[in-house]
């Protein structure tokens, strides 16, 4: 074989950390680091849920039901956060719950971004009747109270994770459409786009090469807030018994169980609530940070 090619790894790594340090000094840099770090933690927990959780999240143990956490009187180390009304291990359900929350959040953001950005860029770039038609639909979707539709649909056809995602996508894509469209509108009149157009570029290539990249930054901001919104939406629907099927370990379902025992055993409402709050606040902090980082007006203002 040929001689191994020396990769300039030390230099590259240095430049990465230097870049990261420079980013941290800009407004929003810390927010992205803190929020992103917490989210990354949740992702790791969700991916390695099978390894991390001490028990099967579905396994019932009626003899040991409603156990308090390990540090309270009567608690044991085998159930660190105690057990619920069916004797299921709360810590394990909490860990598996991260999977559903992240799945719903990320799937919603991707689906909504795909529909919203595509329609937004096409509408904003092409203009004319295409744009007018798309905007009609956007207004309809924005004005429609989707959560009611969700309640109707899920209540009558039964609970299901993907139904929840579908409804959340339908309610969230207009936000992506708005930012993508306004960005496309402003890019369309830029000189470099006009120049490429004058050179005879096909409109599809123009959109892909010149307009779409400009749309990415604002869309990522919307996507982060969509993740947090979708996670809250899923939890709310599950809490009403209208989201993810009841036995599935999700934080919303755990809170619904906890509600039934809130006077006898208020502890049950704490772990899932804290987890939900933490993941949502992390996504929101990261969204704030990315918005500040990508805001050209704040770009050169050091902390």
């Amino acid at each position, binding site marked *: 074989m040929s001689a191994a090619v020396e990769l300039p790894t030390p230099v590259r790594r240095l430049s990465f950390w230097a870049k990261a340090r420079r980013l941290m000094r800009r407004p929003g840099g810390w927010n992205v680091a803190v929020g992103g770090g917490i989210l990354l933690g949740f992702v790791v927990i969700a991916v390695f849920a099978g390894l991390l959780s001490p028990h099967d999240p579905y396994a019932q143990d009626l003899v040991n039901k409603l156990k308090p956490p390990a540090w309270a009187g009567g608690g044991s180390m085998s159930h660190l956060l105690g057990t619920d009304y069916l004797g299921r291990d709360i810590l394990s359900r909490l860990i598996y719950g991260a999977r559903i929350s992240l799945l719903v959040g990320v799937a919603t953001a991707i689906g909504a971004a795909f529909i919203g950005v595509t329609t937004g860029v096409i509408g904003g770039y092409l203009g004319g009747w295409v744009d007018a038609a798309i905007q009609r639909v956007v207004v309809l979707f924005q004005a429609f109270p989707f959560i009611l539709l969700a309640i109707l649909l899920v209540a009558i056809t039964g609970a299901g994770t993907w139904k929840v995602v579908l409804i959340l996508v339908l309610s969230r894509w207009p936000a992506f459409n708005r930012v993508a469209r306004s960005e496309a509108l402003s890019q369309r009149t830029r000189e470099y786009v006009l120049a490429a157009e004058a050179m005879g570029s096909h409109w599809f290539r123009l959109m892909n090469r010149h307009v779409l990249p400009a749309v990415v930054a604002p869309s990522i901001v919307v996507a982060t807030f969509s993740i947090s919104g979708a996670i809250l939406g899923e939890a709310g629907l599950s809490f009403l018994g209208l989201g993810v099927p009841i036995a599935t370990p999700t934080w919303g379902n755990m*809170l619904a169980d906890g509600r039934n025992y809130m006077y006898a055993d208020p502890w049950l409402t704490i772990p899932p*609530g804290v987890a939900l709050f933490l993941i949502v606040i992390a996504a929101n902090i990261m969204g704030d940070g990315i918005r500040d980082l990508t805001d050209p007006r704040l770009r050169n203002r050091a902390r």
Partner: protein
Amino acid sequence: MRRVLGAIPLLLAIVVIIFFITRLVPGDPVSAMLPENATELDRQRMTELYGLNDPVLVQFWKYLVQLLHGNLGTSFQYHSSVSELLWRRLPATLDLAIAALLFGWIIGIALGAIASTKHNKWQDRTASVVGLIGISAPTFWIGLLLIIYVAVPTGWFPTGGRLPADVVPPGPTGVNFVDAIIHLDPGLFFTSLRYVALPAITLGAAMTGLLVRMTRSSMLEVLGDDYIRTARAKGARESTVNFRHALRNAGRPVATVMGLEAASLLSGSIVVETIFSWPGLGQTLVNAVDFRDYPVIQATVLMFAVVFVLTNLAVDIAYCFIDPRIKY
């Protein structure tokens, strides 16, 4: 006027979607209503009685005609007029929504305005944290925590219903704390306030958070503008500059948020009414869904949708007053 007319096709679309969603999905109201030992004849009579045998399009036409006459049908579950049922439940939801709006607006805008005038001081940081917590904490979790850690230990706040069983709601509006003001009855006023306080805080929390953030950021943007410098230069008092000049011009994005939040307030009320056993439209909807009570489901969702569309319309019209540069 164009905006007002524009709302009509939207409402029509909502009627159509709601009708077909409730009909085209599986699930049979007749078997839900009849006892288990009902005969085939009973089933047929029941189906006939509610017109469920007709083709779907005929059912839709009949529904539409009735709707335009202001008749929302008969509840499968209560065997009484749906419009009467909803009129009875509406004041409870209004009661809750108004209290939540007042809470959210006052706290949210005040904190946001203070934060922007004290930029980067501790007041600003506190308000920013409050805003972040408000938009991040799940509504229903706040409700549960308030019940467990405020209502139960103090005993001051009831966790269900709107008034004690022995107090007769005085009317005429049905919104208890407004009625109390009309009747000049401080006892009733504070009682109803005690009942509505925790549900309203729960429902208003998300809006408060959002308003703090919106007010703060749009005030900050406005405070850097030339006319603010001009106002200061001509010797206007600091409070005049902040409130007459800055807050008013920062009002448009804030008003947008207030309108959009009316929507999440409605969906939020469904959850909050369930947690606090508040006898309003949200609870009615959840019950009706359990029972497949189509007329009630349709009517409740329609009512929510109409309120939602009208609120957004009102916000659009309010723009013109806040910002005279906008015309429709």
